[in-house]
């Protein structure tokens, strides 16, 4: 296995299949989503805000909630620090995390009532503390309206905007050695790599899997969708190659690019 580290970086990840697109023979099919049916739901925009700031900086963001249902909805605004515990994101109520950002959240207005078809804007102002320990906040529109039906179990929907903070350029994403899951009659060739964000800043690595013959000729390429990693977060990136490979020697090259640079790993394998 040959490992080429072009630029030091940091990365991490936890177990789902990366959606990918093939190239060739299909030129860059960037997995355009299928047309989505319009459902009478709640909509929040933006869902993600990425902020570059410095400690003690304040920033204000306007969030828009739209009620596409036939029911009048009431929401209260809540802020949570997003922290990583045991590799999982946990939403911690404002004020419960040392060095948290959520405690500074000021919502204007702090609650909204929305008639069917109506939209409302809420401005959230957040201030990064001098010694911040977190890099992400979730601003939640907590729905209080339960369906006025006959049921004794009610479900209400809430939506949140993820706000991430990059306070420096020191991104440290670490990529593990790739492993090969060979193709079978029932499954595609899968290349997996463990990504870990070992730094203090969020990162959004994306990449490409290239399959080369033993002679170095390019056989095919698969785009790896971007995946956000908060500090401490891990991700097992498994990339499928959907074409059958003929018997022979091959090399899989996996490259990830992110805010900290580019990393490329490769692994040789044989198809019997």
């Amino acid at each position: 296995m040959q490992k080429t580290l072009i630029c030091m970086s940091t990365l991490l990840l936890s177990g789902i299949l990366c959606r990918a697109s093939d190239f060739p023979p299909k030129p860059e099919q960037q997995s355009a989503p299928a047309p989505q049916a319009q459902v009478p739901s709640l909509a929040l925009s933006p869902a993600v805000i990425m902020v570059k700031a410095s400690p003690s900086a304040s920033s204000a963001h306007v969030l828009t909630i739209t009620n596409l249902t036939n029911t009048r909805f009431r929401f209260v605004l809540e802020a949570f620090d997003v922290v990583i515990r045991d590799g999982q994101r946990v939403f911690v109520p404002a004020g419960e995390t040392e060095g948290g950002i959520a405690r500074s959240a000021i919502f204007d207005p702090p609650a909204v009532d929305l008639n069917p078809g109506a939209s409302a804007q809420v401005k959230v102002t957040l201030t990064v503390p001098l010694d911040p320990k977190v890099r992400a906040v979730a601003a939640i529109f907590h729905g209080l309206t339960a369906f006025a039906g006959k049921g004794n179990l009610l479900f209400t929907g809430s939506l949140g905007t993820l706000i991430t903070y990059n306070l420096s350029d020191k991104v440290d994403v670490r990529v593990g050695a790739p492993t090969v899951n060979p193709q079978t009659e029932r499954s595609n060739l899968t290349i997996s790599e463990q990504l870990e964000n070992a730094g203090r800043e969020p990162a959004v690595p994306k990449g490409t899997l290239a399959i080369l013959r033993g002679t170095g000729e390019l056989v095919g390429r698969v785009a790896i969708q971007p995946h956000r990693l908060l500090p401490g977060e891990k991700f097992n990136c498994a990339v499928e190659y959907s074409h059958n490979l003929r018997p022979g020697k091959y090399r899989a090259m996996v490259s990830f690019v992110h805010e900290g640079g580019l990393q490329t790993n490769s692994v040789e394998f044989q198809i019997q």
Partner: protein
Amino acid sequence: MRRSWLVLIALLFWSRPASAQVTLTIAFVSDPSGITLSGSGTSSASLSFGTVQAFGGTVPSGVTKSVAGNSWTLSTPFDVLVQKGALDVIDLLSTSYTLTARLQAADIQDTWKFNSVVLSTTAATITATGIYGSTTSYGFSLTVPFSASAAAISNTINFTAVAN
């Protein structure tokens, strides 16, 4: 000197949000093999188990009853649909979502579960890798101890979707 202060103040308050936007929507949907939700397809729904008992009687269509040594459980699947806006063709900002759930009112007697995750008034993660546009089935169960006296059980479960 005054200029330096202005630059310092500007640096302190400088922040630069990303310009692209993702829109998120959430809806509850009846599962084909589960109980029918009132308000299915919207962001606010309800279900009713009707009047049921540990031994004997019938349960609504799509609901399974199981009896253990000291408790009994009603379970049914139902679906949650979280979508991104149709304009978000390129998944630059978010490729998955986190779904959490919490009870509105504390219940020290009964056990409420979603996909084997026990619910409380603190948000618990149901999935950290939700797929946009995919109607995902989740198993819901309510376990009642034999020690509970006959009474109406009701609660509200709040689901929150946040982009990853």
